């Protein structure tokens, strides 16, 4: 289902910066809608993109005696359900690290598995593999892939140095501003001329500050923006405002 679209050199936002609960980002001519949930909706393909769910992270070290509250999978799936309810997408594409480890699906409770199956019955689920979940069991509803494309956009888990027109996850970006003696740190989307990086979606996922050197080769020399995910609105800021 590739469409031929004229190549546009840069991404653009409708406003240079500002706050809103509906915001549009363009990459290679395709329109993307970042959501408060941390998901990214692609209207043209009726596809919802989700990165780094890390399901069953809470239970991943239980066998070693670390008994974290086992509710993160439920929390993550309920958030996914809410994000899907907003757009009713035909396709849900999970950009890797959907499970914290490959044994994760086996540790799901029956109730959580049923919830996942119910969600997957209303949309096509495509699971891209990530570094945490390179090989997921076939029993999971939906199909599997390593990377895939939407029009002229490549979707993969880990952003590739030197690539362009890609949408990825993996890095769990967060950004911070300092204001009136307070420091506010939120998850964020990173939008550069070459790519969009999604924030991590999972309930127990930590974040990596966009100032971290892991972002440097991906953003080097390019002006980028962050879209910070507030509680009630998204806030677009130029990268220099959070450095």
């Amino acid at each position, binding site marked *: 289902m590739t469409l031929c679209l004229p190549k546009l050199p840069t991404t653009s936002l409708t*406003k*240079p*910066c*500002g*706050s809103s609960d509906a915001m549009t980002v363009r990459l290679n001519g395709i329109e993307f809608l970042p959501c408060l949930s941390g998901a990214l909706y692609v209207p043209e393909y009726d596809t919802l993109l989700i990165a780094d769910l890390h399901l069953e*992270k*809470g*239970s991943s*070290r*239980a*066998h*070693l*005696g*670390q*008994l*974290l*509250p*086992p*509710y*993160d999978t*439920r*929390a993550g799936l309920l958030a996914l359900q809410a994000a899907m309810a907003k757009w009713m997408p035909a396709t849900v594409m999970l950009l890797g690290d959907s499970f914290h480890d490959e044994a994760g699906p086996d*540790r799901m*409770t029956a109730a959580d598995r049923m919830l996942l199956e119910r969600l997957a019955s209303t949309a096509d689920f495509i699971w891209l593999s990530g570094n945490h979940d390179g090989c997921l069991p076939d029993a999971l509803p939906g199909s599997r892939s390593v990377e895939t494309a939407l029009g002229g956009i490549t979707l993969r888990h880990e952003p590739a140095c030197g690539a362009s027109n890609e949408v990825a996850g993996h890095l769990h970006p967060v950004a*911070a*501003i*300092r*204001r*009136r*003696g*307070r*420091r*506010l740190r*939120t998850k964020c989307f990173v939008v550069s001329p070459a790519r969009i990086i999604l924030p991590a979606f999972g*309930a*127990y*996922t*930590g974040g990596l500050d966009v100032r971290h*050197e892991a972002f440097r080769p991906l953003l080097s020399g390019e002006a980028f923006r962050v879209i*910070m995910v*507030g*509680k*009630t*609105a998204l*806030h*677009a*800021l*130029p990268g220099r*405002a959070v*450095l």
Partner: protein
Amino acid sequence: MDTGVSHNASAHTGLPEHFAAWFASRGWQPRPHQLEMLETVSGGQSALLVAPTGGGKTLAGFLSSLVDLAQGAAGRGLHTLYVSPLKALAVDITRNLEAPIREMGLNIRVEARTGDTPVHKRQRQKSNPPDILITTPEQVSLLITQEGAEHYFANLNVVILDELHSMAPTKRGCLLALALARLHRFSPGLKRIGLSATVASPDTLRAWLMPQGELGVEHMAAFVNAPGGAEPDIAIMRCNEEVRMPWSGHSSAYALPDIYEAVKSAGMALVFTNTRSQAERIFHELWTLNEDALPIALHHGSLDVSQRRKVEAAMAAGTLRAVVCTSTLDLGIDWGDVDLVINVGAPKGSSRILQRIGRANHRFEEPSRALLVPSNRFEVLECEAARVAAYEGAQDGEGPAELKRDVLAQHIMGSAVAAPFDPDELYAEITSAWPYRNLTRQDFDQAVDFVSTGGYALKSYERFARLKQTPDGQMRLTHPRLAQSYRMNAGTIVEAEMLKVKLAGKRRSSAGKPLNKWGGKVLGEVEEWFIEQLRIGDTFLFAGQILRLEAVEELNALVSRADASEPMIPSYQGGKFPLSTYLAGRVRVMLAQPETWKHLPDQVRDWLKVQQWKSILPLPHQMLVETFPRADKHYLMCYPFDGRLAHQTLGMLLTRRLERAGMQPLGFVCNDYALSVWCVRDVSQAIETGRLSLAHLFDEDMLGDDLDAWLAESMLMKRTFRTCAIIAGLIERRWPGQEKSGRQMTVSADLIYDVLRSHQPDHWLLKAAWDDAASGLIDAKRLAMMLARIKGNVIHKPLEQVSPLAVPVMLEIGREPVYGDAHDALLAEAADDLVDEAMRLV
């Protein structure tokens, strides 16, 4: 030496002849409380000794053990366990004990065991125990979980708990009390000795020391009270009347020349401050004034250990003239001949200031000399209240901590690490410890369930349970790995995430990164939040130097020495200690009694007189509320004098209520004395027309739903939860084989809190955190007392403009962070600023 006298002494007191001779050879006489302790403990009783600093407390504690060991009890396994809150104190005591043992030619082995003791030495201490072991509470908790602990401690005769007044109010005290209950089981005849500075309620500590039995019957240790030394000589710093007394702030900059003069006039001065940043600043400023090049040093808990040891050694050697320090020097280490204590900033509590003053002059009979330096007008009142309280010897320290659930969970895990346990027996043992005497069986069972499977309603961890019940009803550890992990994580001191401050080279590689990636010299450690609020290139004071932040890499903050003469210092983070209820009460009384103002500086007296004329000075039981307009906003000021933490909570709750009343509150600030809320609507008018009722606004029912709703989102609650989760073992800081990368392995406590609260709000650990916060960071207990006190006693004064009493808090606006639920508002503001910048035409 008159041997006849010492014979007499020994006949009356049980002090053996060679002990009496030793005292005499030093030109000393045993003090009455030392002999009373010897008699009490040798007679088989436990005892609490309350003595001021310098009263020969340590020797009084050890005397009965030394006598017993000298009379043939030595060499039969561990006889005396001495527990001190500080590692440094443990080392110090070992040294001090060795002198009399050597000089009397006694065959007694004393050894210290701390976290720094090498493994081979610990092994030896285990196989061949010394007569006296000097250690810390954490080590005791580890020792009782060791294999063979019951044999190791079987002959334990005495346990000495030093600085009990400082340990009992904390979670460490709870852990220690539980360990004490265990030691009692190993050695039922064990005698307990508590050594304490003067406290408000010695009877509570006497009970704390003893095993508690059936409800309502309190067993108490004997009480030995040493007389106080000479009355202290306390003065409040008086500056030249031309110097303006600051209205607000905590810098004390106005007083620095006088502080310097005071240091110059003393032999050796300790300059106490309330926070690290204040210590850094005072140290920096003193050195800019230091024309005489006096040796002045800096000492606080964030400095690198080797740096601190150097300062301590120099103090002991008498080569310093002054040390600027924080509470790290509060405890009873004898560093040398201090003859002046200068306390910069508010004293905050009477007991606190008495202990600090006690650092001056360890020679008991001479008066301690102290100088209190208030940093603003309200602190003048507080200093005056503290000065009078100190003369009266009035005490207001906290009582012992009780029923800390996170510590309970850790102890239950530790019990299983030691050996399989019978729940009934363990419950009986735990409830014999004073802090847990009221623990219900249901609460205990929930704790065991938490330790075993996490205590979740969703029973998903049954197969990963850490404890399992054996057929005979014992709870047994399921894997030896858990024991290893317990030993690595035990303890109750939870630090904020710390970053190492390292000097980096200034050279840069072509990529722009500092070349010296791993940095050079470590200057010390600093809390992560502190570094987080800095930008690369910001300068700050640390370790007495102005540093420039170069980069943050993993757990290191790389810095360089800055050329700047003016460091950027982050906003003052408030004192760590809120104003004590007791001192607050005295300040309220002082305000209401103009005849007591004669000791106050003229400027402060004038300030209060103008307040009396323009507004009202409330009576001690009243709370004054002032309302006035200012620059298109309407202010509501109230003066509860109940400490910053309680005021902060009050502010959060008041703004919610004002919001509902349609007043459109915009924010609030508070200090230890007062609270200011500003609104869009006219508050004076709303009160006068009866639309807003002050009685309703300050009603006690605000502690119900409003408090719950606010707490749910509160950062303070999250911080409290993190501490509980770490102590209770839900989050482990250290992993076997993974000591360094703990951060990558763990899930942030904030995320766990959010998920747990929305999916199981009645979870046992959330309850534990809520109880902690109520008496800790949100101080709801004190707020409840305050609301009860002012019920029916709120007086309102509408004003045309700001009152004199309001000025100090009003000046904090813009300097202190503004509270309120402004998450998205702040983000939007940041974005809008940039819109403005983008749209600007010139």
